[in-house]
Protein backbone atom coordinates (compact mmCIF):
# COMPACT_ATOMS: atom_id res chain seq x y z
CA UNK A 1 0.00 0.00 0.00
CA UNK A 2 1.42 3.32 -1.06
CA UNK A 3 2.52 5.53 1.85
CA UNK A 4 0.44 8.69 1.82
CA UNK A 5 1.88 11.30 4.18
CA UNK A 6 -0.46 13.03 6.54
CA UNK A 7 -0.54 16.79 6.81
CA UNK A 8 1.43 16.49 10.03
CA UNK A 9 4.15 14.54 8.20
CA UNK A 10 4.25 17.10 5.41
CA UNK A 11 4.62 20.01 7.78
CA UNK A 12 7.30 18.31 9.82
CA UNK A 13 9.22 17.47 6.65
CA UNK A 14 9.04 21.13 5.65
CA UNK A 15 10.45 22.21 8.99
CA UNK A 16 7.27 23.84 10.19
CA UNK A 17 7.36 24.12 13.99
CA UNK A 18 4.51 23.10 16.21
CA UNK A 19 3.90 26.78 16.85
CA UNK A 20 3.60 27.32 13.10
CA UNK A 21 1.21 24.39 12.92
CA UNK A 22 -0.88 25.84 15.78
CA UNK A 23 -0.99 29.14 13.93
CA UNK A 24 -2.20 27.31 10.84
CA UNK A 25 -4.86 25.50 12.87
CA UNK A 26 -6.03 28.76 14.42
CA UNK A 27 -6.33 30.31 10.97
CA UNK A 28 -8.19 27.25 9.67
CA UNK A 29 -10.56 27.24 12.64
CA UNK A 30 -11.31 30.90 12.03
CA UNK A 31 -11.75 30.14 8.34
CA UNK A 32 -14.25 27.40 9.11
CA UNK A 33 -16.17 29.89 11.27
CA UNK A 34 -15.78 27.53 14.20
CA UNK A 35 -15.32 28.68 17.81
CA UNK A 36 -11.68 29.07 18.87
CA UNK A 37 -12.14 26.31 21.44
CA UNK A 38 -12.16 23.87 18.52
CA UNK A 39 -8.51 24.56 17.70
CA UNK A 40 -7.11 21.52 19.57
CA UNK A 41 -9.58 19.25 17.84
CA UNK A 42 -8.76 20.71 14.45
CA UNK A 43 -5.05 20.33 15.21
CA UNK A 44 -5.60 16.69 16.03
CA UNK A 45 -7.64 16.02 12.91
CA UNK A 46 -5.27 17.86 10.58
CA UNK A 47 -2.24 16.13 12.00
CA UNK A 48 -3.60 12.83 10.88
CA UNK A 49 -5.41 13.85 7.70
CA UNK A 50 -4.35 12.24 4.45
CA UNK A 51 -4.03 14.28 1.26
CA UNK A 52 -7.12 13.72 -0.88
CA UNK A 53 -6.81 13.69 -4.62
CA UNK A 54 -8.65 16.58 -6.25
CA UNK A 55 -9.75 16.82 -9.85
CA UNK A 56 -10.83 20.28 -10.96
CA UNK A 57 -13.10 20.52 -13.99
CA UNK A 58 -13.68 23.91 -15.65
CA UNK A 59 -16.68 24.19 -17.92
CA UNK A 60 -18.63 27.27 -19.09
CA UNK A 61 -16.94 29.71 -16.80
CA UNK A 62 -15.04 32.97 -16.86
CA UNK A 63 -12.19 31.52 -14.73
CA UNK A 64 -13.08 34.08 -12.05
CA UNK A 65 -13.49 31.35 -9.46
CA UNK A 66 -10.04 29.93 -10.12
CA UNK A 67 -8.63 33.47 -10.11
CA UNK A 68 -10.38 34.20 -6.84
CA UNK A 69 -8.97 31.07 -5.26
CA UNK A 70 -5.42 31.46 -6.46
CA UNK A 71 -5.43 35.05 -5.23
CA UNK A 72 -6.67 34.01 -1.85
CA UNK A 73 -3.54 32.76 -0.31
CA UNK A 74 0.14 33.03 0.03
CA UNK A 75 1.73 29.68 -0.64
CA UNK A 76 2.66 29.11 2.94
CA UNK A 77 -0.31 29.54 5.23
CA UNK A 78 -3.87 29.12 3.94
CA UNK A 79 -2.27 27.96 0.75
CA UNK A 80 -1.20 24.99 2.78
CA UNK A 81 -4.60 23.67 1.89
CA UNK A 82 -3.29 23.20 -1.59
CA UNK A 83 -0.16 21.59 -0.26
CA UNK A 84 -2.47 19.39 1.73
CA UNK A 85 -4.38 18.31 -1.33
CA UNK A 86 -3.06 16.69 -4.42
CA UNK A 87 -4.43 18.80 -7.26
CA UNK A 88 -4.14 16.16 -9.93
CA UNK A 89 -6.00 17.94 -12.71
CA UNK A 90 -6.80 21.59 -13.41
CA UNK A 91 -6.69 22.39 -17.08
CA UNK A 92 -6.23 26.13 -16.56
CA UNK A 93 -3.44 25.88 -13.99
CA UNK A 94 -1.59 22.75 -14.97
CA UNK A 95 1.39 22.66 -17.28
CA UNK A 96 0.30 19.64 -19.31
CA UNK A 97 -2.43 19.87 -21.92
CA UNK A 98 -4.26 17.77 -24.45
CA UNK A 99 -3.89 14.00 -24.25
CA UNK A 100 -1.21 14.07 -21.58
CA UNK A 101 -3.48 16.04 -19.28
CA UNK A 102 -6.44 13.75 -19.90
CA UNK A 103 -4.21 10.75 -19.20
CA UNK A 104 -3.26 12.34 -15.85
CA UNK A 105 -6.92 12.75 -15.03
CA UNK A 106 -7.69 9.12 -15.73
CA UNK A 107 -4.70 7.97 -13.73
CA UNK A 108 -5.78 10.02 -10.71
CA UNK A 109 -9.31 8.65 -10.98
CA UNK A 110 -8.14 5.04 -11.10
CA UNK A 111 -5.63 5.38 -8.27
CA UNK A 112 -8.10 7.01 -5.94
CA UNK A 113 -11.33 5.38 -7.06
CA UNK A 114 -14.08 6.21 -4.62
CA UNK A 115 -12.02 8.75 -2.67
CA UNK A 116 -11.23 11.71 -4.84
CA UNK A 117 -12.94 15.08 -4.80
CA UNK A 118 -14.28 16.62 -7.99
CA UNK A 119 -14.35 20.42 -8.04
CA UNK A 120 -16.38 22.00 -10.82
CA UNK A 121 -16.57 25.61 -11.92
CA UNK A 122 -18.70 26.77 -14.82
CA UNK A 123 -22.08 25.54 -16.01
CA UNK A 124 -22.67 22.59 -18.32
CA UNK A 125 -24.34 23.31 -21.69
CA UNK A 126 -26.96 20.80 -22.74
CA UNK A 127 -28.04 22.64 -25.87
CA UNK A 128 -25.22 21.33 -28.01
CA UNK A 129 -22.19 19.38 -26.75
CA UNK A 130 -20.00 21.46 -29.04
CA UNK A 131 -20.70 24.67 -27.10
CA UNK A 132 -17.98 23.84 -24.59
CA UNK A 133 -15.39 21.10 -24.91
CA UNK A 134 -12.02 20.20 -23.40
CA UNK A 135 -9.65 18.12 -25.50
CA UNK A 136 -12.61 17.32 -27.72
CA UNK A 137 -14.67 15.94 -24.85
CA UNK A 138 -17.99 17.67 -24.14
CA UNK A 139 -18.50 19.10 -20.65
CA UNK A 140 -21.41 16.78 -20.02
CA UNK A 141 -19.44 13.65 -20.93
CA UNK A 142 -16.41 14.73 -18.91
CA UNK A 143 -18.52 15.49 -15.85
CA UNK A 144 -20.47 12.23 -15.92
CA UNK A 145 -17.33 10.19 -16.49
CA UNK A 146 -15.26 11.90 -13.83
CA UNK A 147 -17.80 11.80 -11.00
CA UNK A 148 -18.24 8.05 -11.27
CA UNK A 149 -15.55 7.31 -8.68
CA UNK A 150 -15.80 10.57 -6.73
CA UNK A 151 -16.39 10.76 -3.02
CA UNK A 152 -18.07 14.13 -3.40
CA UNK A 153 -18.51 16.98 -5.87
CA UNK A 154 -18.02 20.63 -5.01
CA UNK A 155 -19.68 23.08 -7.38
CA UNK A 156 -17.64 26.25 -7.12
CA UNK A 157 -19.24 29.53 -8.13
CA UNK A 158 -22.74 30.46 -9.17
CA UNK A 159 -22.34 29.00 -12.65
CA UNK A 160 -21.65 25.49 -11.40
CA UNK A 161 -24.08 25.86 -8.49
CA UNK A 162 -27.08 27.36 -10.26
CA UNK A 163 -26.27 27.97 -13.94
CA UNK A 164 -24.93 31.48 -13.38
CA UNK A 165 -24.47 33.93 -16.23
CA UNK A 166 -24.68 31.37 -19.04
CA UNK A 167 -27.97 30.27 -17.53
CA UNK A 168 -29.37 33.79 -17.44
CA UNK A 169 -32.35 34.60 -19.63
CA UNK A 170 -32.59 33.46 -22.47
CA UNK A 171 -30.01 30.75 -21.67
CA UNK A 172 -28.87 30.23 -25.26
CA UNK A 173 -26.62 27.25 -24.50
CA UNK A 174 -29.09 25.35 -22.36
CA UNK A 175 -26.75 25.74 -19.37
CA UNK A 176 -27.51 23.69 -16.26
CA UNK A 177 -25.89 23.36 -12.85
CA UNK A 178 -23.96 20.42 -11.43
CA UNK A 179 -26.83 19.54 -9.10
CA UNK A 180 -29.19 19.34 -12.08
CA UNK A 181 -27.07 16.51 -13.47
CA UNK A 182 -25.53 14.71 -10.48
CA UNK A 183 -28.04 13.03 -8.21
CA UNK A 184 -26.16 10.00 -6.93
CA UNK A 185 -23.17 11.73 -5.31
CA UNK A 186 -23.07 14.35 -2.54
CA UNK A 187 -22.83 17.81 -4.10
CA UNK A 188 -21.78 20.91 -2.17
CA UNK A 189 -22.65 24.23 -3.75
CA UNK A 190 -20.26 27.09 -3.04
CA UNK A 191 -21.97 29.88 -4.99
CA UNK A 192 -20.94 33.47 -5.51
CA UNK A 193 -19.72 35.38 -8.52
CA UNK A 194 -17.04 34.59 -7.54
CA UNK A 195 -17.33 32.96 -4.13
CA UNK A 196 -15.28 34.48 -1.34
CA UNK A 197 -11.95 32.72 -1.81
CA UNK A 198 -11.59 31.95 1.87
CA UNK A 199 -14.95 30.17 1.73
CA UNK A 200 -13.66 27.89 -1.00
CA UNK A 201 -10.55 27.01 0.97
CA UNK A 202 -12.58 26.65 4.14
CA UNK A 203 -14.94 24.12 2.57
CA UNK A 204 -11.95 22.14 1.35
CA UNK A 205 -10.33 22.46 4.79
CA UNK A 206 -13.51 21.22 6.39
CA UNK A 207 -13.56 18.15 4.19
CA UNK A 208 -9.89 17.59 4.89
CA UNK A 209 -10.29 18.03 8.64
CA UNK A 210 -13.46 16.12 9.30
CA UNK A 211 -13.55 13.84 6.29
CA UNK A 212 -17.19 14.63 5.85
CA UNK A 213 -19.34 17.21 4.18
CA UNK A 214 -20.50 20.26 6.11
CA UNK A 215 -24.12 20.89 7.00
CA UNK A 216 -25.92 22.15 3.89
CA UNK A 217 -29.00 24.33 3.41
CA UNK A 218 -31.88 23.63 1.04
CA UNK A 219 -29.79 24.90 -1.89
CA UNK A 220 -26.84 22.69 -1.01
CA UNK A 221 -24.72 25.52 0.40
CA UNK A 222 -22.66 25.13 3.61
CA UNK A 223 -24.70 26.67 6.39
CA UNK A 224 -21.51 27.90 8.08
CA UNK A 225 -21.00 30.48 5.33
CA UNK A 226 -24.41 30.79 3.71
CA UNK A 227 -26.60 30.61 6.77
CA UNK A 228 -27.06 34.34 7.26
CA UNK A 229 -28.17 37.06 4.89
CA UNK A 230 -25.90 39.97 4.11
CA UNK A 231 -28.62 42.21 5.56
CA UNK A 232 -28.48 40.46 8.92
CA UNK A 233 -24.72 40.97 9.31
CA UNK A 234 -24.34 44.28 7.48
CA UNK A 235 -22.71 47.04 9.48
CA UNK A 236 -25.04 49.55 7.77
CA UNK A 237 -28.11 47.85 9.23
CA UNK A 238 -28.65 50.52 11.89
CA UNK A 239 -29.09 53.05 9.08
CA UNK A 240 -31.73 50.83 7.47
CA UNK A 241 -33.59 50.67 10.75
CA UNK A 242 -33.41 54.41 11.24
CA UNK A 243 -34.63 55.08 7.72
CA UNK A 244 -31.39 56.70 6.52
CA UNK A 245 -30.75 55.75 2.91
CA UNK A 246 -28.44 56.81 0.11
CA UNK A 247 -30.62 58.01 -2.76
CA UNK A 248 -28.02 58.12 -5.50
CA UNK A 249 -24.39 57.17 -5.80
CA UNK A 250 -22.08 59.68 -4.17
CA UNK A 251 -24.83 61.80 -2.62
CA UNK A 252 -24.60 63.00 0.96
CA UNK A 253 -26.14 59.81 2.34
CA UNK A 254 -23.74 57.68 0.32
CA UNK A 255 -20.77 59.61 1.65
CA UNK A 256 -22.03 59.11 5.19
CA UNK A 257 -22.24 55.39 4.61
CA UNK A 258 -26.01 55.05 4.82
CA UNK A 259 -28.00 52.01 3.79
CA UNK A 260 -28.06 51.16 0.07
CA UNK A 261 -31.54 49.59 0.01
CA UNK A 262 -32.91 52.31 -2.26
CA UNK A 263 -30.08 51.73 -4.74
CA UNK A 264 -31.18 48.15 -5.24
CA UNK A 265 -29.20 46.29 -2.58
CA UNK A 266 -30.20 42.62 -2.58
CA UNK A 267 -28.66 42.07 0.83
CA UNK A 268 -31.98 41.13 2.47
CA UNK A 269 -32.47 38.14 0.19
CA UNK A 270 -28.85 37.07 -0.27
CA UNK A 271 -27.13 34.45 1.82
CA UNK A 272 -23.32 34.75 1.90
CA UNK A 273 -20.47 35.59 4.24
CA UNK A 274 -19.44 38.87 2.60
CA UNK A 275 -20.49 41.03 5.53
CA UNK A 276 -18.37 39.09 8.04
CA UNK A 277 -15.48 37.50 6.16
CA UNK A 278 -15.29 40.28 3.57
CA UNK A 279 -13.00 40.26 0.54
CA UNK A 280 -9.30 40.69 -0.20
CA UNK A 281 -8.20 39.23 3.08
CA UNK A 282 -10.91 40.93 5.10
CA UNK A 283 -10.42 44.39 3.59
CA UNK A 284 -13.92 45.32 2.53
CA UNK A 285 -16.99 44.14 0.66
CA UNK A 286 -19.23 45.74 -1.99
CA UNK A 287 -21.58 47.50 0.41
CA UNK A 288 -18.69 48.89 2.41
CA UNK A 289 -17.23 50.18 -0.85
CA UNK A 290 -20.53 51.92 -1.56
CA UNK A 291 -22.15 49.56 -4.07
CA UNK A 292 -25.37 47.65 -3.38
CA UNK A 293 -25.18 43.87 -3.11
CA UNK A 294 -25.94 42.10 -6.39
CA UNK A 295 -27.12 38.93 -4.72
CA UNK A 296 -24.53 36.93 -6.64
CA UNK A 297 -24.77 33.79 -4.49
CA UNK A 298 -28.47 33.30 -5.15
CA UNK A 299 -29.98 31.33 -8.06
CA UNK A 300 -30.95 33.45 -11.06
CA UNK A 301 -29.50 36.64 -9.63
CA UNK A 302 -29.06 38.02 -13.13
CA UNK A 303 -32.80 37.82 -13.69
CA UNK A 304 -34.15 39.34 -10.47
CA UNK A 305 -35.49 42.50 -12.05
CA UNK A 306 -32.34 44.60 -12.21
CA UNK A 307 -29.37 45.26 -9.93
CA UNK A 308 -30.53 48.79 -9.15
CA UNK A 309 -34.21 48.03 -8.56
CA UNK A 310 -34.91 47.74 -4.84
CA UNK A 311 -36.12 44.44 -3.46
CA UNK A 312 -39.58 45.87 -2.75
CA UNK A 313 -40.27 47.03 -6.31
CA UNK A 314 -42.13 45.18 -9.01
CA UNK A 315 -42.11 45.30 -12.77
CA UNK A 316 -45.50 46.55 -13.87
CA UNK A 317 -45.06 45.89 -17.55
CA UNK A 318 -45.33 48.27 -20.46
CA UNK A 319 -47.27 51.51 -20.56
CA UNK A 320 -49.23 50.13 -23.48
CA UNK A 321 -50.41 47.16 -21.45
CA UNK A 322 -51.43 49.41 -18.59
CA UNK A 323 -53.30 51.73 -20.93
CA UNK A 324 -55.01 48.68 -22.37
CA UNK A 325 -56.06 47.53 -18.91
CA UNK A 326 -57.37 50.99 -18.11
CA UNK A 327 -59.29 51.16 -21.37
CA UNK A 328 -60.74 47.72 -20.70
CA UNK A 329 -61.91 48.92 -17.31
CA UNK A 330 -63.62 51.97 -18.70
CA UNK A 331 -65.21 49.90 -21.46
CA UNK A 332 -66.61 47.31 -19.06
CA UNK A 333 -67.87 50.07 -16.80
CA UNK A 334 -69.53 51.84 -19.67
CA UNK A 335 -71.08 48.59 -20.84
CA UNK A 336 -72.39 47.87 -17.34
CA UNK A 337 -73.85 51.36 -17.11
CA UNK A 338 -75.42 51.02 -20.54
CA UNK A 339 -77.04 47.75 -19.52
CA UNK A 340 -78.35 49.40 -16.38
CA UNK A 341 -79.76 52.33 -18.32
CA UNK A 342 -81.49 50.04 -20.77
CA UNK A 343 -83.06 48.09 -17.95
CA UNK A 344 -84.19 51.32 -16.33
CA UNK A 345 -85.75 52.52 -19.54
CA UNK A 346 -87.50 49.20 -19.99
CA UNK A 347 -88.86 49.36 -16.46
CA UNK A 348 -90.20 52.86 -17.02
CA UNK A 349 -91.72 51.83 -20.35
CA UNK A 350 -93.39 48.83 -18.83
CA UNK A 351 -94.82 51.16 -16.23
Amino acid at each position, binding site marked *: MKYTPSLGDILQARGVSRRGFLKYCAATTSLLAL*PPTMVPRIANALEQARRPSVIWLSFQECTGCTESLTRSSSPTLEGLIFDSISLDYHHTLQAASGEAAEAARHAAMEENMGNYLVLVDGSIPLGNPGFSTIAGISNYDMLMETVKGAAAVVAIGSCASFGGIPGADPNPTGAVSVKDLITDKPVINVPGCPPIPMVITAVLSQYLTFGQLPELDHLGRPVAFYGQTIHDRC*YRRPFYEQGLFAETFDDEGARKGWCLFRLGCKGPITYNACATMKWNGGTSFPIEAGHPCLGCSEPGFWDKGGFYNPVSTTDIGSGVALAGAAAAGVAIGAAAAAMSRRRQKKTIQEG
Partner: protein
Amino acid sequence: MSSIDEITSPVPYVRGNVEPILHEVVHALDRLLKEQEPTIIDLASLPFAPGELETLESYLGSGELTAELEALGPSQIRETAYPGVWWLDHRNTDGEVVGRYLEITRIPEILMSQDADITAGRARLGENLEGFESGRSNGADA
Protein backbone atom coordinates in the same frame (compact mmCIF):
# COMPACT_ATOMS: atom_id res chain seq x y z
CA MET B 1 -7.77 64.22 7.71
CA SER B 2 -7.54 64.65 3.94
CA SER B 3 -10.75 64.91 1.99
CA ILE B 4 -10.29 61.38 0.64
CA ASP B 5 -10.26 60.10 4.21
CA GLU B 6 -13.40 62.05 4.94
CA ILE B 7 -15.18 60.37 2.06
CA THR B 8 -13.93 56.85 2.67
CA SER B 9 -14.10 56.86 6.44
CA PRO B 10 -17.62 57.57 7.53
CA VAL B 11 -18.10 58.33 11.21
CA PRO B 12 -17.11 55.15 13.02
CA TYR B 13 -20.11 53.64 14.71
CA VAL B 14 -18.23 53.32 17.96
CA ARG B 15 -21.05 52.17 20.13
CA GLY B 16 -21.98 49.46 17.63
CA ASN B 17 -19.63 46.56 18.26
CA VAL B 18 -16.83 47.86 20.47
CA GLU B 19 -18.82 48.24 23.69
CA PRO B 20 -20.33 44.73 23.73
CA ILE B 21 -16.90 43.19 23.13
CA LEU B 22 -15.44 45.14 26.03
CA HIS B 23 -18.26 43.83 28.22
CA GLU B 24 -17.44 40.31 27.06
CA VAL B 25 -13.80 40.92 28.01
CA VAL B 26 -14.83 42.03 31.51
CA HIS B 27 -16.89 38.86 31.99
CA ALA B 28 -14.01 36.78 30.65
CA LEU B 29 -11.61 38.38 33.14
CA ASP B 30 -14.04 37.53 35.95
CA ARG B 31 -14.14 33.95 34.71
CA LEU B 32 -10.36 33.82 34.56
CA LEU B 33 -9.98 35.05 38.12
CA LYS B 34 -12.73 32.95 39.65
CA GLU B 35 -12.66 29.72 37.68
CA GLN B 36 -9.19 29.85 36.09
CA GLU B 37 -10.90 29.41 32.70
CA PRO B 38 -9.40 31.23 29.70
CA THR B 39 -11.50 32.74 26.91
CA ILE B 40 -10.69 33.23 23.24
CA ILE B 41 -12.58 35.72 21.08
CA ASP B 42 -12.17 35.38 17.31
CA LEU B 43 -12.24 38.98 16.04
CA ALA B 44 -12.54 37.80 12.44
CA SER B 45 -15.99 36.45 13.16
CA LEU B 46 -17.46 39.81 14.12
CA PRO B 47 -18.89 42.31 11.60
CA PHE B 48 -16.94 45.48 12.32
CA ALA B 49 -17.89 48.75 10.73
CA PRO B 50 -14.99 50.65 9.17
CA GLY B 51 -12.75 51.97 11.93
CA GLU B 52 -14.25 49.88 14.72
CA LEU B 53 -11.45 47.33 14.87
CA GLU B 54 -8.89 50.13 15.07
CA THR B 55 -10.96 51.77 17.80
CA LEU B 56 -10.99 48.53 19.79
CA GLU B 57 -7.27 48.02 19.33
CA SER B 58 -6.35 51.56 20.38
CA TYR B 59 -8.78 51.38 23.30
CA LEU B 60 -7.15 48.24 24.65
CA GLY B 61 -3.70 49.66 23.97
CA SER B 62 -0.38 48.02 24.90
CA GLY B 63 0.97 46.76 28.19
CA GLU B 64 4.32 45.59 29.39
CA LEU B 65 4.85 42.61 27.13
CA THR B 66 5.02 42.20 23.37
CA ALA B 67 6.24 39.05 21.64
CA GLU B 68 7.14 38.70 17.96
CA LEU B 69 6.66 35.21 16.60
CA GLU B 70 8.11 34.12 13.27
CA ALA B 71 6.38 30.93 12.11
CA LEU B 72 4.86 30.66 8.65
CA GLY B 73 4.91 34.44 8.63
CA PRO B 74 5.05 37.06 11.38
CA SER B 75 2.71 37.12 14.34
CA GLN B 76 2.49 39.58 17.19
CA ILE B 77 1.28 38.52 20.60
CA ARG B 78 0.82 41.54 22.81
CA GLU B 79 -0.54 41.98 26.30
CA THR B 80 -2.85 44.97 26.20
CA ALA B 81 -2.98 47.72 28.81
CA TYR B 82 -5.32 45.37 30.70
CA PRO B 83 -3.28 42.49 32.15
CA GLY B 84 -4.65 39.14 31.18
CA VAL B 85 -6.09 40.52 27.95
CA TRP B 86 -3.87 39.57 25.01
CA TRP B 87 -4.13 40.76 21.39
CA LEU B 88 -2.93 38.16 18.84
CA ASP B 89 -2.23 39.21 15.27
CA HIS B 90 -1.31 36.38 12.88
CA ARG B 91 0.01 37.14 9.40
CA ASN B 92 1.31 35.02 6.54
CA THR B 93 4.63 35.57 4.75
CA ASP B 94 2.97 38.16 2.48
CA GLY B 95 1.99 40.16 5.54
CA GLU B 96 -1.72 39.48 5.08
CA VAL B 97 -3.77 38.97 8.22
CA VAL B 98 -4.85 35.34 8.64
CA GLY B 99 -6.10 35.49 12.21
CA ARG B 100 -6.91 38.02 14.92
CA TYR B 101 -7.82 36.98 18.43
CA LEU B 102 -8.38 38.35 21.87
CA GLU B 103 -7.23 35.84 24.47
CA ILE B 104 -8.16 36.41 28.08
CA THR B 105 -5.70 34.15 29.82
CA ARG B 106 -2.54 34.16 31.92
CA ILE B 107 -0.45 33.33 28.86
CA PRO B 108 -1.56 32.40 25.32
CA GLU B 109 -0.85 28.77 24.49
CA ILE B 110 1.14 29.67 21.40
CA LEU B 111 3.75 31.53 23.48
CA MET B 112 4.62 28.43 25.41
CA SER B 113 7.27 26.11 24.02
CA GLN B 114 5.53 23.12 22.51
CA ASP B 115 6.33 19.51 23.40
CA ALA B 116 6.93 18.43 19.79
CA ASP B 117 9.35 21.31 19.26
CA ILE B 118 11.13 20.66 22.56
CA THR B 119 11.54 17.00 21.63
CA ALA B 120 12.87 17.86 18.18
CA GLY B 121 15.19 20.52 19.60
CA ARG B 122 16.51 18.18 22.31
CA ALA B 123 17.26 15.60 19.62
CA ARG B 124 19.08 18.24 17.58
CA LEU B 125 21.10 19.43 20.58
CA GLY B 126 22.02 15.87 21.45
CA GLU B 127 23.29 15.28 17.92
CA ASN B 128 25.30 18.50 17.96
CA LEU B 129 26.89 17.52 21.29
CA GLU B 130 27.82 14.14 19.85
CA GLY B 131 29.43 16.05 17.01
CA PHE B 132 31.60 18.00 19.51
CA GLU B 133 32.57 14.74 21.24
CA SER B 134 33.59 13.02 18.05
CA GLY B 135 35.39 16.17 16.91
CA ARG B 136 37.49 16.20 20.13
CA SER B 137 38.30 12.50 19.89
CA ASN B 138 39.40 13.11 16.29
CA GLY B 139 42.06 15.49 17.50
CA ALA B 140 40.29 18.80 16.68
CA ASP B 141 41.25 21.76 18.86
CA ALA B 142 39.53 21.77 22.24
